[in-house]
């Protein structure tokens, strides 16, 4: 294998599950390639297929179609070589051991683990070293799980909704540690349903919805796409095509007496709208919710497919 082998290479991943109401297609053809050193967010609403994608990527689930490779080899081989550290979304810790003991156990399974005290320090839980795992809070448990993921000093760090059980302060500390780790040239892939997290901590975001990649690009691009605002106004007899040409407006549609404008720059659009149509009333400006933006983007996706 060459040095340039991608850290993560997913091709045409498909995975469905059986359910009482028929098969559920959790992932329907996901292609993602991540170069070594990239910090990538796997962004999507709940049920988008993030966890399934991660399970396939880590070899925990066998895809129905497609292939997953980490550093040019199969997930199992990369894991056996200690190149991968992961923090799954669900999971707790073994009881009856102290934090230090537990991290030591996991480290002992690798050929060259890092020093346990060092890892605990890095994650900020040195003070918990001799606490039994069943006596930790949710946030503390997450940090121990983070320490477990880091004990092999992995080339690739995979985090599935890592901050779910943390308070605001815990989140901040967690991401600081993650950034620091990534700054050493390691590859990080994390799943989240918070746009802010993706925006703040990743270089690139892969937006998935309904089991497909909707957008894959720099986080700024994603933010621009889903950060649209909507202006609704009552404006009988207006021509949507003309409205769409107003500055700051991306698209417009008429809904009876009302019009709905999707705007990249709602401030400019409002000014232009009122200037051109002084009789426009009942103005309402809303930031498109993230979920809404997702749906919008997937709708476009489906439309393209149907065409």
């Amino acid at each position, binding site marked *: 294998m060459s040095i340039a082998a991608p850290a993560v290479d997913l091709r045409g991943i498909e995975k469905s599950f059986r359910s009482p109401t028929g098969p559920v297609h959790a992932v329907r053809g996901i292609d993602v390639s991540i170069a070594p050193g990239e910090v990538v967010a796997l962004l999507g609403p709940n049920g988008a297929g993030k966890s399934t994608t991660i*399970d396939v990527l*880590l*070899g*925990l*689930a066998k895809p129905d179609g497609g292939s997953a490779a980490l550093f040019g080899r199969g997930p199992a081989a990369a*894991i*056996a*070589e*200690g190149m*991968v*550290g*992961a923090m*799954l979304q*669900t*999971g*707790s*810790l*073994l*009881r*009856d*051991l102290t934090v230090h*003991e*537990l991290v*030591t*156990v*996991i*480290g*002992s*399974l*690798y*050929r060259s683990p890092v020093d346990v005290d060092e890892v605990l320090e890095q994650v900020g839980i040195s003070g918990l070293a001799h606490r039994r795992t069943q006596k930790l809070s949710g946030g503390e448990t997450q940090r121990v*799980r983070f320490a*477990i993921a880091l004990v*092999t000093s992995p080339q690739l760090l995979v985090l599935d909704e890592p901050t779910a059980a943390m308070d605001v302060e815990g989140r901040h500390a967690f991401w600081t540690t993650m950034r620091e780790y990534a700054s050493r040239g390691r590859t990080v892939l994390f799943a989240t349903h918070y746009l802010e997290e993706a925006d703040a901590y990743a270089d690139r975001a892969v937006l998935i919805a309904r089991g497909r990649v909707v957008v894959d690009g720099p986080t700024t691009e994603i933010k621009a796409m889903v950060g649209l605002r909507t202006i609704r106004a009552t404006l009988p007899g207006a021509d949507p095509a003309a409205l769409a040409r107003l500055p700051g407006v991306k698209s417009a549609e008429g809904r009876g007496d009302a019009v709905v404008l999707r705007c990249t720059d709602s401030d400019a659009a409002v000014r232009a709208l009122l200037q051109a149509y002084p009789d426009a009333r009942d103005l309402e400006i809303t930031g498109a919710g993230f979920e809404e933006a997702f749906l919008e983007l997937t709708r476009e996706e489906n439309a393209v497919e149907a065409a």
Partner: protein
Amino acid sequence: MTLSVTYVRYELLRMLRNRRFFIFSLGFPLVLYFLIAGPNKNVNDFGDSGVSAPLYLMVGLAAFGTMNAVVSGGARIALDRSVGWTRQLRLTPLTPGNYLATKILVSYMTALMAIVVLGVAGATLGVRLSVANWAEMIALLLVGLLPFAALGIALGHLLTVDSLGPAVGGLTALLSILGGVWFPITGGFLHLLAQALPSYWLVQACHVASGGKAWGALGWFVVTAWTVVLTAAAAWAYRRDTQRV
């Protein structure tokens, strides 16, 4: 395939920090041994078994304690599963084979502790065996525990944490009674049934002093058959469990 010494050590430590293990695998058998064998200290032919009460009950309760230790040792896999730990371990270089081997090894270590505890207790009540006989008895117990180790692993993959305690406790209690842990089963239908059970042959390890014929062909056949069947069951349960993910 090398086992991680650290992993084995901490798995053992976890077991020893578990109060239930001490109660059911060590404390309970020990107390019962003195309660039952104490008053019958001088009975030389316990219930037509051909061996003294202290010896018979020593092996009987060692069988009970070790059965518990080995079955629950494997069944603790259910605990690992319930907290997502088996998934976490699949993200390490630990192979499934080494995971199971560690579980079995730790179970056997704890079983050995139960044997030693009961052995010392037996000695205080006058059990005297040659070194060769002690060795043979312990060896037979360890071999006789193989089907139980497989049973534990199967249960560990099939049970939930809630059903773990009752299932393991109930099953080992039943196998103990029918296998003659508390009192020798020497005749009638119950004897026929008992001979088909692996627990019966664990207890029969007490006959080591009678010239190496503790088990005989039937004993070896029954233990081997159960080992094969329960290992297949454990393999099936393991695959069923890991495929679902």
